């Protein structure tokens, strides 16, 4: 854990060095900037690998916390899936779980564009989907009209609202203590709204079936990238083979009320993310603009972002090439 903080600090310092080297006398020193960029890269790798480890840890904890679960929790964070038998009461829970899972993963992943994570999510998801297939078809039958449209509606909502609906989960009682602790740990360095913490603690341990888990899994995967791209991700999730998404009317109802706290929280993340990236943009000019654009991309987009970062790290060399 402390490696992550350390890595982040080193990244910040490195960026500061690169930035200040542009204004120092005598021109940009190629050697020093190359070394700084190497440090930046390795710090980022450590930072992101720490993220992944933490995720894995959480999943382990979930597994331990709910030994009776059959859901493929390995592929999503905090997926608590109930056996498919409980359907009617589980819609609400499903929805809340979906949103719950989104928001925490936002907080965890908000600032990172990771290469490693899409990979892990992909494999996790594929395993998850296999198990979900039967339950999806089940859901499809019992689903309300236009499940796709419900997703679309959700997509059109901001991620903030997604998180907002998650906080609705406050009403449900959830004793996911270890998880919340993990979350609060991660957010020690951020201003986490109180509601967020509470919401987490009230997570429903009894989760709807894996069908729902499938969607959040993909959503979670998307959270590995920039927050703004979340909308586009959701758009694709129904296309990717998920059948009718359940609980659309419920979700619609829930997404309406926007909780300010969740808003501010996600805004914070947005700001934190964007400040980090914008500093890079300032340094490297347009090369980094790709990081902030809402582009449609698969899980590899995290990789693309990384490549952009890495590429942009060399873009200052382009300035030197102009010598």
């Amino acid at each position, binding site marked *: 854990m402390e490696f992550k903080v*350390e*890595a982040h600090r*080193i990244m910040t*310092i490195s960026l500061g*060095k690169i930035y200040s080297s542009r204004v120092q*006398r*005598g*021109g940009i*020193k*190629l*050697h*020093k900037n*190359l*070394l700084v960029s*190497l*440090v930046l890269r*390795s*710090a980022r790798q*450590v930072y992101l690998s720490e993220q992944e480890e933490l995720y894995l840890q959480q999943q382990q904890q979930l597994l331990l916390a709910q030994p009776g679960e059959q859901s493929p929790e390995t592929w999503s964070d905090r997926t608590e899936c109930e056996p498919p038998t409980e359907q009617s009461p589980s819609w609400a829970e499903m929805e809340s779980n979906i949103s719950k899972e989104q928001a925490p993963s936002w907080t965890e992943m908000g600032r990172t564009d990771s290469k490693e994570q899409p990979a892990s999510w992909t494999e996790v998801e594929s395993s998850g989907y296999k198990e979900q297939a039967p339950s999806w078809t089940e859901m499809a039958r019992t689903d309300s009209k236009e499940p796709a449209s419900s997703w679309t509606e959700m997509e059109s909502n901001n991620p903030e609202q997604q998180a907002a609906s998650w906080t609705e989960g406050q009403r449900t009682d959830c004793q996911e203590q270890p998880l919340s602790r993990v979350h609060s740990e991660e957010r020690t360095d951020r201003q986490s709204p109180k509601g967020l913490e509470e919401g987490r603690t009230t997570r429903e341990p009894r989760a709807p079936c894996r069908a729902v888990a499938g969607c959040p899994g993909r959503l979670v995967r998307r959270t590995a990238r920039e927050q703004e791209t979340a909308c586009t991700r959701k758009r694709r999730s129904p296309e990717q083979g998920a059948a009718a998404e359940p609980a659309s009317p419920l979700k619609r109802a829930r997404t309406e009320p926007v909780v300010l706290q969740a808003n501010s929280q996600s805004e914070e993340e947005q700001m934190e993310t964007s400040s980090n990236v914008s500093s890079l943009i300032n340094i490297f000019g347009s090369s980094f603009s790709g990081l902030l654009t809402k582009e449609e991309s698969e899980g590899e987009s995290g990789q693309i972002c990384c490549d952009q970062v*890495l*590429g942009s*790290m*060399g*873009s200052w*060399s*382009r300035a*030197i*090439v*102009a*010598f």
Partner: protein
Amino acid sequence: MHLVQCESIETNSQGAGGCGNDIQWCFTQVKGTTDLDVSEVHCGSACRLILLSMGEDIDTRKINNSFLRDQNYVTEGEALPQLPGDDQTGGGLPDIRIFTTFEERALEVMGEVEDRAIINAEVSTGRKADIISTVEFNHTGELLATGDKGGRVVIFQREQETKSQPHHQGEYNVYSTFQSHEPEFDYLKSLEIEEKINKIRWLPQQNAAHFLLSTNDKTIKLWKVSERDKRPEGYNLKDEEGRMKDLSTVTVLQVPVLKPMDLMVEVTPRKIFANAHTYHINSISVNSDCETYMSADDLRINLWHLGITDRSFNIVDIKPVDMEELTEVITAAEFHPHHCNLLVYSSSKGTLRLCDMRAAALCDKHSKLFEEPEDPSNRFFFSEITSSVSDVKFSHSGRYMMTRDYLTVKVWDLNMETKPIETYQIHDYLQSKLCSLYENDCIFDKFECAWNGSDSVIMTGAYNNFFRMFDRNTKRDVTLEASRENSKPRAVLKPRKVCTGGKRRKDEISVDSLDFNKKILHMAWHPTENIIAVAATNNLYIFQDKVNSEMH
């Protein structure tokens, strides 16, 4: 990795120590404006120059006016026994006289105590331009050149032995000073080009004059240093002051004769090698053929002929087609001392490449690659920085070469590419501090290293004005300090020790109290004798071994 375990020198009761057949290093001279390191300067801080008289004279400062146009370069002379009460904190000042230097900057307070003058000089600021950036002896060791951040070169000459002043034997006095490089501005790229002298290299002497190459980031200059001690007199058309004579007064024709005059040292730029480097020049090296030399920047090495300035040959180019794929840069380069076709260059990845110019015109393909496989357990954030080679030096024999990276010095045998034959840890206790050293930029410091004349001892610098010497034969090492406190002439330097953990003994320094602003990056060893010149920020220290200094 062959790690050479070096046992530290045991300090005997007198506190003397050394290595290399137990050389005892004695302080000889220090040259510098003030005692202050520019890094720690604040306005109004006091420093102390101990200026010691030789005889009955009270004010015996030897201020050489012949040089730096804007500062006094005070040379310290003969030692006298220390008076009681004279401690390092600056004593009492019975008498106060205030005067200003010619640039009206220094405030000097003189206290006279018997036949000795202790000058407390308050200077308004230490100047960053005084930071010495390179030190080099010439091939005989008679001349010592230093370059600084302000683009100036100061040449010291060793005094000849004379019977009249036996104490001044072997001392280096200022021979000449000149402004080598000026700050420039590249209008095309909107970049300022620093005037800091990166390297000075002497040419082997071929006639009465001395030649040296000095370089900043972009331009190399060849300077001719010559003496003039005679001048022609008795011109027919001009009188003694140079004015034209009235022709009517000329009745007799005379042949001008050469008459002796006061020795004057002239330094003139003979060649300027410019516009050949896109990146910052980090090394120059004169070939053993004495006709060509090379200059290396971050990505390219160029070969020049000393007589031709309008073109150079590019012999190494490691610039990738796409700059975004850049992974390493050239950090240092040197020609082999005997084989005029061999050169070696080091990279930021810690590798050395030996190139043979006979193989191809472009030496991109190395003939030998010297690389030590990295220990994967050592990988951490900063392992790439600490493995970057900052200096490479061939031994005088040409059989070995030495590389300095941030934490170690490695000696390589040219015949073995797989690993160095010796590795010396310089300041391994910094491993745990790499993060804070990264923050304050100290991890990017480029330390130099030096061989002694017989290739038996190697020397390199460290922090807190420490420098270390390793005897390759006896495997003993010593840590010495270059500081004004220890600077009594012919005082034997006491070995220092850094306490790495546990209990700190009396004379040891703990790692946390090391001053990372005081670093010894540049140094040189006399080619034949045991005389070393060590640059500590803006001061140049000259140490000789005890035997050497007593002989004279």
